[in-house]
Structure formats: C-alpha cells, structure tokens
C-alpha cells in the first residue's frame, strides 16, 4: 500500500468520524493549529500563573457573552470559565491545578509558630499520638490526651469554667498561624463583655476534634471551644474550624457539636466575623444547656 493510499484512508476515516460527531468540527473545544515558535535562542521567562490576574484569566474561546462570563467568574473562587480542548481542560488550567495541588501537599507538615502560642500564653499538651505519621493513621489516639497532659491541665487550668478554649494545628499549622491572632481576641473580648467565665487556654499537639471530650472531662468545663486547622484545600491551606460543644465528655459525637468551618481570608468567613458568631453560639449553648442536634438547627 502506498503512502498516498494510507493518507486517503486516514482522511476518509476522519471525515466519517466528523460526520458521526465523534470528532469535533472546527469551533468550541478545538484549537487552531499551534503558532510556530520564533527561531533563534530559547528564552522562556514566565510570570507567576498563581498570581490573581493570571489565575482568574478566562479560557473560554468566543463566549456568548464575554462580559457576562467575566461577571459569573468573579462571583466564586471555583475554577469556572477555564475553557476546554475537546472535552479536556486547557493547558494553563491543568497546570495551575497541578501547581495548587503541589503546594498544598508540600504544606501538610507545617508547625505552629512559638510566637503565636506565646502571644496568647498557650502552654502545650499532647495527645496519645507519637508523631505525625501516627497522627494521620490513628485518629483514635489523636482524640485522647496523655495522662501527663491531664496532669498538666489539672495543675495549670482554672477548673470548671463556663467556656474552655483550646487550639490545635490539626492538618494545617498555617491556619493557626494566620487566623488565631485575629479570631481569638474577638472571642476573648466578646465572652468577657458578656460576663462569661473563661478557662485557661492551651494548645494541643496532634489533636483530633474528638479530643474535646477529654478536654471537657479534664477541665470540668461547661462548654469547650476547639479552634483547629482544616485539611488543606487547593490554594487554601490556612482554613480554621471552630468546634463547640456543651458539656463534652467521653462518648459525645459530632452530632453533639456545632461547627463553623472555612475561617480564612482566602474566600471563606473572615476570622473577625467568625469570632463574633462563636461568642453568640457559646452564649446560646450556655443559655439552652445544649449543643449540636439537641440545640436544633434553626439558628445561625
């Protein structure tokens, strides 16, 4: 078979596929032929694609309503308006995603700055996990304080407060480093103004949310507030969660807790607003003597 024959067959097959709709005709999802690169010395010197201007670049070719599309894209941090190559994303959108994922993965193993702890006089206790690997693999141990931790708490904490505040890095030390300096003063000030007694705050290394039960038991607190780093998302590696529970004691579950998540300046609830909401919620728990499902879902 000659090469001309093969070429003719290929062209016939392509034409048939197009007719069947299995290959796109020219237009959406198809790219025009790549422009040839200029000859000469290779010089590639790129701006940062993660910067806002480039990150928000719209990749749809020939939209119905370009201005409308830009408006739609401005309403959300979700990756819309990225365009397509056939049914797949365009190259720049694909690479930005991979870059964001890479940075998030690199950030999992951070540590909380000692200055942040010092700023709020947080002493540190540990859960029963030995290291970060065990913390990731054994959530049960991350929910339990060591005996040494309980002894330290008994020695250093004001017993039986109305609100006990504790802090943990969880899966994002950056969340504590970035949000705690803003949210904690709002909460402390708000509770003081409301005349609520607040216990001695402390930091828990390698904590899971369920550690609130041990904290409640060790301090005798009426309510416990846990500020803990969330697992990083793409491009948002510093979101904090606030978990609150009325009389958390061993056996209490997520259904007994209330939660505010995504506390971050990067597209979530800003820590100042979140702090005000936490104060309001804790007061409601103290008033109603309940939390979680028992408190009802009408409020907020």
């Amino acid at each position, binding site marked *: 078979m000659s090469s001309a024959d093969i070429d003719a067959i290929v062209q016939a097959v392509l034409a048939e596929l197009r007719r*069947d*709709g*299995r290959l*796109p005709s020219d*237009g*959406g*999802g*198809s790219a025009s032929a790549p422009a040839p690169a200029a000859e000469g010395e290779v010089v590639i010197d790129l701006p940062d694609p993660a910067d806002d201007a480039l990150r928000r670049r719209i990749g*749809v070719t020939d*939209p*119905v*309503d370009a201005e*409308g*599309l830009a408006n*739609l*894209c401005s*309403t*959300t*941090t*979700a*990756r*819309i*308006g*990225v*365009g*397509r190559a056939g*049914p*797949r*994303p365009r190259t720049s*959108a694909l690479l930005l*995603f991979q870059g964001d*994922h890479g940075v*998030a993965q690199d950030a*999992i193993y951070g540590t909380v700055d000692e200055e942040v702890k010092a700023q709020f006089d947080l002493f540190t206790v540990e859960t029963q996990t030995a290291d970060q690997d065990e913390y*990731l*693999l*054994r959530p*049960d141990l991350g929910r339990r304080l060591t005996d040494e931790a309980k002894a330290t708490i008994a020695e250093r904490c004001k017993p039986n407060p109305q609100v006990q505040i504790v802090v943990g890095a969880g*899966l994002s030390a950056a969340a504590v480093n970035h949000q705690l300096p803003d949210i904690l003063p709002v909460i402390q000030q708000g509770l003081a103004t409301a005349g609520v007694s607040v216990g001695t705050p402390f930091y828990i290394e390698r904590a899971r949310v369920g550690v609130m039960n041990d904290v409640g038991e060790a301090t005798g607190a009426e309510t416990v507030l846990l500020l803990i780093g*969330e*697992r*990083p*998302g*793409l491009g*948002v590696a510093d*979101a904090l969660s606030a978990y609150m529970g009325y009389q958390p004691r061993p056996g209490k*579950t*997520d*259904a007994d807790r209330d939660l505010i*998540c*995504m506390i971050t300046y990067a*597209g*979530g*609830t800003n820590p100042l607003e979140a702090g005000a909401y936490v104060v309001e919620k804790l007061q409601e728990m103290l008033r109603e003597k309940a939390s*979680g*499902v028992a408190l009802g*879902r*009408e*409020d*907020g």
Partner: protein
Amino acid sequence: MLLRTKLYGTTYEFGSIKELLAKANEEKSGDRGAGIAADSVAERVAARGVLAEVTLGTLRENPAVPYEDDEVTRVIDDAVNEWIFAEIKGWKVGDFREWLLADTTTPAMITRVSGALTGEMVAAVTKLMSNMDLMLAARKIEVSAHCNNTIGLHGRLASRNQPNHPTDSVEGIRAAIYEGLSYGSGDSVIGINPSDDTVGSVARLLEMTYEIIERWEIPTQNCLLAHVTTQMEAMRKGAPVGLVFQSIAGSQKANEAFGVDVAMLDEAYDLAKRYCFTAGPNYMYFETGQGTALSADAHHGADQLVMEARNYGLAKRYDPYQVNTVVGFIGPEYLYDAVQITRAGLEDHFMGKLTGISMGCDACYTNHAVAAQNDIENLAVLLSAAGCNYFMGVPMGDDAMLSYQCTSYHDAPSLRQLLGLRPLPEFEAWMEGLGLMADGVLTERAGDASFFLQR
C-alpha cells in the same frame, strides 16, 4: 464453630465470622488502625480460603452487630425474602462468586437474589473478588431509578452538578451551575453541599436551583445536602425539594453520630413522597463511605467493608434515586493511598449494585492522602467501564467549599466520549435541543457558562 486452614504448612485459625471477614479483607489502613486486619498477606489469603467455604446462611446468622442491639441489622434482616433465602442459604461464598461471574447467570437472576442478601453476605463475596471481578459482575447488574429523569440505564453516565461555594453565595453557586450545565453535568442532580446548615439558607438555595430548572426546563432534580432534619423543615415550609439527602452509616451507633436514626429517615422518606416537586417514585439520595463507622467508634469490631455493605442494605429500604460512596474523602487513616482508594471505589460500586440500589461514586481524595488527580481519573474510567451510574462534577475537580478533589465538569463528557456513553436520555435530548451536544459529543457552544445568561 471451627474456622481453620493450613497454607504452606502453617495453620491459621479464626475465632469468629467477624474476625474471619476482617482478616480476609483487602489491605485498608482503617482496618489496620482498628487492630483487626490480617497480620500477614499469607494470613489474609488463608482467611479467604476459609471464607470461601462459609455458607450464606452462616453469614446471616452472624451479623456484625446482633439483631437485638442494632436497628440497621434489623432493617436488613427483616427485609430478607425468606423464599429466596431458603434457596441460597446453603451456597458457599466461593461458589457465590463463581455464580455471579458465570455467563449463564443473567442480570435478572442476580437482581432476584439481591432480595435475600444481607450486608455480611455482600461484603463476604466482595472480599473474594479481584478488581476486574468486581467490574465485570457490577457491569451485569442494571439498577435504574426515576425522579424527574431516568438514571442507571446501560450506556448512560450521569454527572451530579456540585457547584459548592465556601460561603453559599447564591450568585457564585449559580455561576458554577451554569458552567457545569454547559459541559453536560447535572443530569444526576444539581446537588449543593451547604456551608450553612440552617433552614433559611438551605431554602434560599433550593429556590434558586428550582428557578434555574424551571426557567431552562431541565429534566433533572435539585438537592441540598444539609442535615435531613433541615431539609424536612424546609419542605414543610414549602421550599422546592427534588431529592432528599442524608449521609448514613452501617450501625445504629454510627448513625447516631450523624444525628439520624431509622425513624427519622422513615419520616424523611414519607415527607419526600408528599412534598417533593419531582415526579418520583425515587426521591432519596444517600452518601456513604468506608471508615465512617470506625471513625465514630461504632464499627463493633467489624471491618470497614462489612460496615459499608450494611449501608446499602439500609439505603435500599428507601428505594433511593441514587447512592454514592465518597470513597477517598475520609482520609488516609482509613484509605491510605490510591491503591486502597481505587480498590474501595470498585468494591463499593459493586456492593451497591449487588444490593440492588442505583449506585454512583464520588471518586475523590484529600490533600493528605497519597493520591493525585491522575489516580481519580483512573478510577473514574474503571468505574465507568463497570457501569457506574454517576460521578460528581466539580469545577476542575477542586471543590471550593469541601477542600477535597474529585471528578470535574470536564470528566463526564470525557468519559462519555472515551467509552461511548451518553447522558441520561431526557437530559441528552435537552442538551441536543439547546445545541450543546450532538451525537453524544459537546458542540462548539458547550463549555461556556454565559450560554445560560440568554434566558
């Protein structure tokens, strides 16, 4: 009870059916963390050898949690068709596997036997199956359901349009919905995970999604994945609900951690039938995932596959429109890496279908798992080949609210194109009518959210 075998000269003995099931399970970090996994690969295979000889009747007699102590066990056991059970109770698990795979076993035969299965039986046979076994057997079983459109038919692949926003912005969510619709995502459901689980906020998003469905005459349904009690309250107040959602788990105690019980789900199902604006008869949507019972310390010493299988038995009580495992969401402490996530996705899909429910998959992972987007694309292809009913559609696979990654708006049309699949029939006709799809392929107008600014 004596459960013993030799393998390469070493004797392995197992103390109970529950222990045997756990040790026969494919490697999962959750089972290892719970201290119930096989100590060695050889012990795992030895356990499978013994399990292959256990009868389905024995499995029914040994549920993970006793009948008297657990309402999930009771729901499943009470639903067993006794006539069919009498026919199969003497089957050994190893023979059951071969029966499922045999070319002489028709889909109708499997569907009939589903009526007599408990979670323990479904999990047991799954442990004896390789990944391709799971795909081939699942592919045979067609479970379709109808709400405003028809899901689960062979040759169809649906996509849940999941337009989440970190602060529930109505405009932001609407924009993402438009984007998804323009790629052909939304035939399974337009389903939002709200950040704010209050009736007011949930009702506002229900109204907005309903308005889009009405204005564009989309053959689909909406859903707000808030706590079921919030949705019930919203329905009572007149909010337009298409599907009613809840996360469920495989034991009574684990469901308590979600703040639900069977009575509450019964009430939700009853309300759905009375208040949903959709045609039905299938109104419910559930999410599950291996490890949820263990994470609530409510696994009763059973492995995560057994607890997951029990979910599907519970879900079946409500004749759901769709159920999906959220397979990598829970994190590496339960499914450590891409190998375990992939395996679990194939297992869960098969188990759901074998139980007789319309099964999809949120193929996903978190940033602290040893997995990346390529692994999820792989899993989606495998599951599509296995006949999975639907996946999630999320902008570029990156959920702006839940901080995890799953399949994207681009993935549904890609999988359809790759494997010759089509959207749900009513939805495909709708897309063709708008000129967004022709002969199963996106047209040049697709992939442009501003298309939906025209009405």
